[in-house]
């Protein structure tokens, strides 16, 4: 087995209605691009970016929905073994905000109990078209104990921060888990993904 050039590997999964900018967030972060009017992404399964946080290399594997959200038909297996979920809506689209409880139900059903979930309101560059006021979203995130962040994939606002914050949170959790392994380790039958286990063993 090759020695990997990173300290942590995390799987991050994006969900949310079609057209809220999930793919744009990923491409902005991983490629620094904002492809306008981009259609469905073909042939790209997940994207990878390695970042350095406090001297530790963190490899982020970022998974997109492959268009299966369009008709509400995401496979359950997509949620399995995700370390973090980015639940995205479009601040200029009330509808995409109203669907959030439905997404949370899916998360509850299929995702790992210990998954870190962050709510993201995207497209803040379109401030004049805003339909969901910030406070409402913050309150909602609060009730669900999620982190909340507003971003613009187009202007590259908060995109870097989004992924770096997530990475920090995941590292914090991972360290905590290694520390009190016996008391607080993932439930048997539901544990973290293999990637997680293997990166722990490096420490």
């Amino acid at each position: 087995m090759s020695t990997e050039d990173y300290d942590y590997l995390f799987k991050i999964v994006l969900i949310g209605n079609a057209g809220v900018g999930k793919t744009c967030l990923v491409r902005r972060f991983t490629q620094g691009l904002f492809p306008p009017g981009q259609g469905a992404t073909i042939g790209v399964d997940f994207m990878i970016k390695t970042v350095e946080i406090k001297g530790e290399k963190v490899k982020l594997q970022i998974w997109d929905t492959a268009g299966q959200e369009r008709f509400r038909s995401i496979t359950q297996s997509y949620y399995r073994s995700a370390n973090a979920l980015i639940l995205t809506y479009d601040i200029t689209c009330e509808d995409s905000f109203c669907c959030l409880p439905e997404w949370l139900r899916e998360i509850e059903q299929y995702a790992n109990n210990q998954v870190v979930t962050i709510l993201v309101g995207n497209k803040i560059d379109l401030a004049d078209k805003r339909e969901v006021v910030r406070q409402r979203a913050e309150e909602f995130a609060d009730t669900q104990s999620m982190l909340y962040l507003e971003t613009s994939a187009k202007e590259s606002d908060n995109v870097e921060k989004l992924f770096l914050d997530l990475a920090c949170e995941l590292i914090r959790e991972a360290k905590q888990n290694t520390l009190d392994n016996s008391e607080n380790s993932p439930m048997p039958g539901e544990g973290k993904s293999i990637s997680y286990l293997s990166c722990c063993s490096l420490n």
Partner: protein
Amino acid sequence: MASDNLPSEFDVVILGTGLTESIIASACSRVGQKVLHIDRRNYYSSKWAGFNFNSLLSWIEEYKSQQGSQSTEDEAEWRKTLEDGEEVLPLSADDSFITNLEVSCYASLEAEEEVKENEEATETLSPAAPSPTEPEEETKGKGEGESSPDVTQETTTSGETQHTQEDGGCGVQEEGASQDAGQSEEIEQKEQQEDTTAGPPSSAKEVKKKKITYADLVKEGRRFNIDLVSKLIYSRGSLVDLLIQSKVSRYTEFKIVTRILTYRQGRVEQVPCSRADVFASKQLTMVEKRMLMKFLTFCLDFEQHPEEYQEVSDQPFWEFLQTKKLTENLQHFVLHSIAMVTKETCTEDGLKATQHFLRCLGRYGNTPFLFPLYGLGEIPQCFCRMSAVFGGIYCLRHSVQCLVVDKETNGCKAVIDTQGQRISCSHFVVEDSFVRQRWKNTEEGHISRAVLITDRSVLPADSDQQISLLTAPPLEPGGPAVHVVELCSSSMTCMPGTFLVHLTCSSKGTAREDLESLIAQMFYVPPSPGEELAEGDERSGRPTVMWAMYFNMLDISRMDGSNGFDLPSNVHVCTGPDVNLGCDYSVKLAEKIFRQLLPEEEFCPPAPDPEDIIYEGVAPQGEGSGFEENPKTEGSPLQSEADGLENHPESEKEAAEVEAPIQETPKEALKEDASPSEE
């Protein structure tokens, strides 16, 4: 739900998301075909689906309420889209493939101390909760004989019992929802303690163990993944090959089946099958060990020694074994647990089966089998994901009501979906249950299934995290041989402290008739929920059944392909799953249908590796997925030997290609990406 309309033109429309359909979907999308993949149900994997406990209970409810209901569609609108020379061929509105479904609960119905005291109070809770004791008998007589009133002692337990049960389940469910999962953590921790104190389960520990009630099963329902189909994956079978070759393996992880067991003379025994097992075995004498090793070594390359078997190659394998000077013990192991054939199987087939088993040993572990984490139901979904990544469009809760057939060519030109939309296609691929009425043969096969939740393993060992395959020879001559798969909680299919047991055989009668007596011999089935065994009962060492489900599943796998169906030539029927332990039937059928659809194209070429797609500004990373893990410790992604050695192309080279817009047709994108990365 989806406000979006489906596009109206596709190359291939696929109805049903079982394994065969899903492989075809991914294979077609992969080579650039426009694929629409739909399923009438609100879940993936069709017959291969896995459910958590609560979803399973709802599924059972839904199944019951569906019985006899027929949907009537308003056809007026789409009729107008028909042209001259077109006729309509309706699909079956009833796609059920399950019969004789029966569910029984044996776990204690006392929810928790508090709830027990408050029994009166919980009485008022919603009666909408699934009633687990109610038997379900399909009335559409499938030649299994009228579902007799053998509704058995436990299923006829008075209304009172059933009532309490509902209340119990319900009460705790609500409590669970509002409370912190304090109690579950408790169970968990106990479980972990047990994990770490590796040692044979002592009776003292048993006492400490909290008794799991029905309410616990409901509360922890999310931790179950109960498959309708029970199969294992041969580590050198066609499914593993396909998963690796197509790179679909990246979507899931596997556990190694840790033990092969058999049931013999009323006892569960471990079958030594690898060299290490044979030598470590305490049950075999030195002489037996040598005999067995000699025989197995011969089987590995039996073709090289024609003189040993050729004269008797079409004689029964059983008789051949007897001539090989194997003790009765060993004959049993080889026939039932290694070859897994019947006494009637001919020698050549028996040898081939033994050889296949032996060749699969040691690739990933000490047994020939793998099992996917979260259950078999994950596998079709992984292929669906691959299809979606390559542009396949996915829509659940959506079906086809009829086909539009060109009278002249007798080809299917389009389908009419359940919304009345006309969707044109060059090929239509369909799960067999939707076209049952077009089946020419009237004789249907069935598979008998039972699923049990138990409290301990059929063969307790140092570690209770074992996945075991047990083969039980027919209890009486002419009866079915049963394969039993016992799953532990680390396979992510059941809650800690429980085991999930799948029993499968070819139907002779109803599932209950076929499997009940074996279950009664191997397990303790309480006469009433929660009833414990008296001290010193002979059954006291056995696992207690907490919950059981029986059903029969339609099996017309003998009719592979479309030959047996009265359908247009570009309609392809996915039959199966078959009753065999492996998944090979369904994988081979998928490839066969794909070759009919697209004879020129490659079947599931490797998808480009995202690790190779590295964008500007990012330093190239070391190759390898980073998932490599010692297979013995945890579920591990598949990795072929070839994969391990292979050097992924250097990333700088790739970067330029990836910069190019991804808008090009998938076909081109694939050809570019795929060819260099796999060698």
